[in-house]
């Protein structure tokens, strides 16, 4: 059996194990929902469910590109700062040109360029992704602060705002974007050669290179995608809060990483799914939503979130152990 076939078999095996993991997690979501529904009589209302979906959509979009990075055993700590700069630049472009379309292009483009830079730092300059993206985070933040000079940009055209706060058939727009990228991301990872190569790089970069995978090019690609998705997320935030400020997205990096990990993707690379990340995002959002509905003192939030993250990953580790 040649290497390509071997890789294909391995990834199919990984696929079924990943499917099992996704199932366990889905179970977790269902249990969580059941618990919240009994504790709060407003949990299962249409409005609240839509809220939860919309809030998870944002987290998911940030975490979806990140999933690909983590699949290659890398990390992207710069996504929060990426969101800030992309949002601020996009906001300026919308204000200056009046064109939402140009703004969208700027946001995603800026995010992608930043991602590209990360990719180059990691591949060409051989800097470990943790440090490269950490350094990038600081540099992006500096540029954003300098550019915004403590001001805010606010007031965007209604067509643009539809992206964040609009509804289509009663469902919030961000949810559609979420589903769209769930499909795109999932199909890309599982069904394209490039996707399979990404898994292979994470599982064993040496073997992957030997079987002909252009490792550097794929790595640059995943960081660029992670950046572009951060850019997209920044547009949705802009559309929702109708303003741009230098510190947007600051608090989104660690939750995005948590969503990916809670969703079953391994930090060591090679296993995990985009769908799992969606479930991870759902779980984290449900926990916060539940605490808000139950009017639990917000000081409890970091603690409860920390415990849930540990629990989710522990369950996953056990399930993985059983599966082997």
């Amino acid at each position, binding site marked *: 059996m040649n290497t390509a076939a071997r890789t294909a078999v391995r990834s199919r095996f990984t696929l079924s194990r990943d499917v099992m993991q996704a199932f366990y997690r889905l179970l977790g979501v269902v249990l969580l929902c059941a618990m919240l529904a009994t504790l709060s009589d407003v949990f299962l209302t249409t409005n609240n469910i839509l809220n939860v979906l919309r809030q998870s959509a944002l987290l998911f979009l940030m975490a979806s590109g990140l999933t690909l990075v983590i699949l290659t055993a890398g990390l992207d700590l710069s996504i929060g700062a990426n969101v800030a700069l992309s949002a601020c630049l996009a906001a300026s472009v919308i204000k200056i040109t009046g064109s939402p379309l140009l703004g969208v292009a700027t946001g995603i483009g800026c995010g992608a360029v930043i991602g590209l830079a990360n990719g180059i730092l990691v591949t060409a*300059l051989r800097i*470990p992704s943790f440090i490269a993206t950490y350094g990038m985070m600081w540099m992006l933040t500096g540029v954003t602060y300098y550019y915004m000079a403590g001001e805010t940009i606010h007031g965007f055209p209604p067509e643009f705002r539809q992206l964040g706060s609009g509804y289509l058939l009663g469902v919030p727009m961000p949810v559609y974007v979420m589903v769209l990228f769930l499909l795109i991301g999932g199909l890309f990872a599982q069904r394209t050669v490039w996707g399979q190569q990404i898994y292979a790089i994470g599982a064993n970069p040496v073997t992957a290179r030997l079987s002909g995978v252009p490792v550097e090019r794929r790595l640059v690609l995943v960081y660029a995608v992670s950046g572009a998705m951060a850019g997209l997320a920044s547009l949705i935030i802009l559309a929702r809060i109708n303003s741009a400020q230098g510190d947007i997205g600051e608090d989104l990096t660690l939750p995005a990483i948590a969503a990916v990990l809670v969703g079953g993707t391994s930090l060591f690379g090679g296993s995990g799914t985009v769908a799992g990340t969606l479930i991870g995002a759902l779980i984290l959002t449900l926990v916060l939503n539940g605490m808000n509905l139950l009017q639990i003192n917000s000081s409890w939030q970091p603690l409860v979130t920390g415990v849930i*993250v*540990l629990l989710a990953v522990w369950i996953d580790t056990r399930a993985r152990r059983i599966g082997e």
Partner: protein
Amino acid sequence: MSTRGFSLAALPVARVPGVAIVLVVLCAGFGVTSPGFATPANIANILTQSTILLLLALPMTVIIMTEGLDLSIGAVLTFASIVLAVTVIATGSPTLAFLAALGVGLCFGLGNGVLIAVFDIPPFITTLGTLGIAQGLSLLVTDGQSVVGIPRSIEQIYSGTAAGIPFPIIIAALAYFITHALLYHTRFGTYVFALGGNREALRVAGISVRGMLIRVYVFGGLMAGFAALLMTARLNSAHPTAGIGMEFDAIAAVAVGGTSFERGNGWLLGTLLGVIAVGVLRNGLNLLAVPSSVQVACIGALVIVALFIDGMRAER
């Protein structure tokens, strides 16, 4: 281009430190452009300001050498300092308070170690979880407020001097030598190196890998508890946001110093240089009154440049 060697036994082979180059360049640059930089008072400032970070970066070096990470160390530092403050106000005994802080560090270190070694949860996630727990506890205990009313004796620990040298520097030097001895002159240290590069060797030798891992994280927790003393003394209070982000600063300092995430190569002196380099950069930029946004960008640049230099040299 041949690699210049150093005669330090602890130096990872064939790695000329980028951090040393960066540090020299920074010091020279600031010394020339900023009249107040190269004065004893300012240098003492830089070193004193770097002590808390060093206390976190030392165990972080050891942890990273075992292919692990401790993201909770900043939050544990914060919570320990709050416990210290509350205890000293309630009991009036600095000793008891210090022990309480160490106790907090011990608990979290144990927790981290057990979750990682026994429950097999990857260090990144474990410590991300315990970060949340420590942060949550800090917020709950203080309700967001500073804890004040701490007796002056604690404050003396940061502001006092012995033979003209500020206490924090003495404490940090002590911590450095202890860690150095632990790492390079004890069996514990040898096992730590093995944990990073060659776990099989440990198992074959009959050493409990789990036990070693737990000890490593306990070391981290204890140092965080120890650093809490300095932090509380420095602020003369305790605040739930005091240590935010310090774990990333510590990790960056370790990486800038030349310790690799992958191969278990550890260079403690590099960590010290890395911590000082960051302190020098911040201080120098403050003295030059560089706008804050530019400072932020420079910090990122420092990290990337230091590793870029290392990366380029490693290739040769």
